[in-house]
């Protein structure tokens, strides 16, 4: 069965990002008082950063928990963060619906795309985007670094 045709995403779109529950994937944000995804947690590969669109998931009866269990391997060791299209646009990134058949919820897959940036500009964008991500499924079961 062919993958769904790509749909247009708006600035009001929301995104779920699946993050492995390993300490390497988080960094402590003291001003927010919580863990946010680290460099590894907001990794961009050549096709962009992999996410799922809640609106499209909902249309087929799926939700944030399914991103954790169906959105990749190792369902017991992941959490799910949410962020919005405005945050993506604010840092100068884009997003496109990129349906695939890699997972049972691949129909809702979207890629956050970043332009070619100087290293410091990329750090700034990534840091800002990570701070806008809010945990919506699972718990980051890590103690705050002592003395942070």
């Amino acid at each position, binding site marked *: 069965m062919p993958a769904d045709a790509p749909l247009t995403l708006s600035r009001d779109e929301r995104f779920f990002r699946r993050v492995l529950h*390993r*300490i390497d994937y*988080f960094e*402590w944000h003291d*001003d927010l008082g919580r863990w946010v995804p680290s*460099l590894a947690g907001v990794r961009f590969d050549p096709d962009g950063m992999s996410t799922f669109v809640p609106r499209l998931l909902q249309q087929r009866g799926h939700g944030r928990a399914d991103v954790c269990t169906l959105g990749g391997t190792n369902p017991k060791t992941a959490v799910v963060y949410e962020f919005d299209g405005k945050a993506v646009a604010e840092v100068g990134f884009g997003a496109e619906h990129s349906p695939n058949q890699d997972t049972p919820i691949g129909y809702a897959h979207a890629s956050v795309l970043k332009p070619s940036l100087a290293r*410091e500009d990329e*750090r700034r964008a990534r840091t800002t985007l990570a701070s806008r991500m809010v945990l919506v499924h699972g718990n980051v079961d890590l103690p705050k*670094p002592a*003395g942070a």
Partner: protein
Amino acid sequence: MTVTGSALDAFRPATSPSASDLAAFTPRRGPTVKVLVRHADETPHWLPYVMGRLRQLLQLTYDQDEGVPPPHPESIQRALSELIRFMRVDTPTPSVVPTFDGGVQFVWHKGGWDVEVEVGPKETLLWAQRRDGIASWHGSLDERLDDARSVMAEITVLA
């Protein structure tokens, strides 16, 4: 402070290990860094966490499919001596994460600052920004050492 474990063999003591001498964790190569802690209560409160994370980074088995390559041993060896160049005893503890090119990154998000110090096998890069847009700079730690000390002092005061 007593640190044991085979992973710490990579941090060969420059002198006999002592509960109060950070020189015990100086890497094999590079300049010797000696930070003497005169009293036990002056042990940097960030040191146990940082040492623990560096030990984990040495010991962890990394699955390439998960996206993060194993840190380069030379990066881990350099990490602590680079950190000591600008950290104070009371500096807030950083997060410690691997980078995609085999480095070790120390990260702070505190007092309105975002600060990243990336230690690679050969060089150390510093990036910092105030989130209110007042300040932003980057460069090698060698070039920005005074800036690094300054921002660490600022977030320490705010802690």
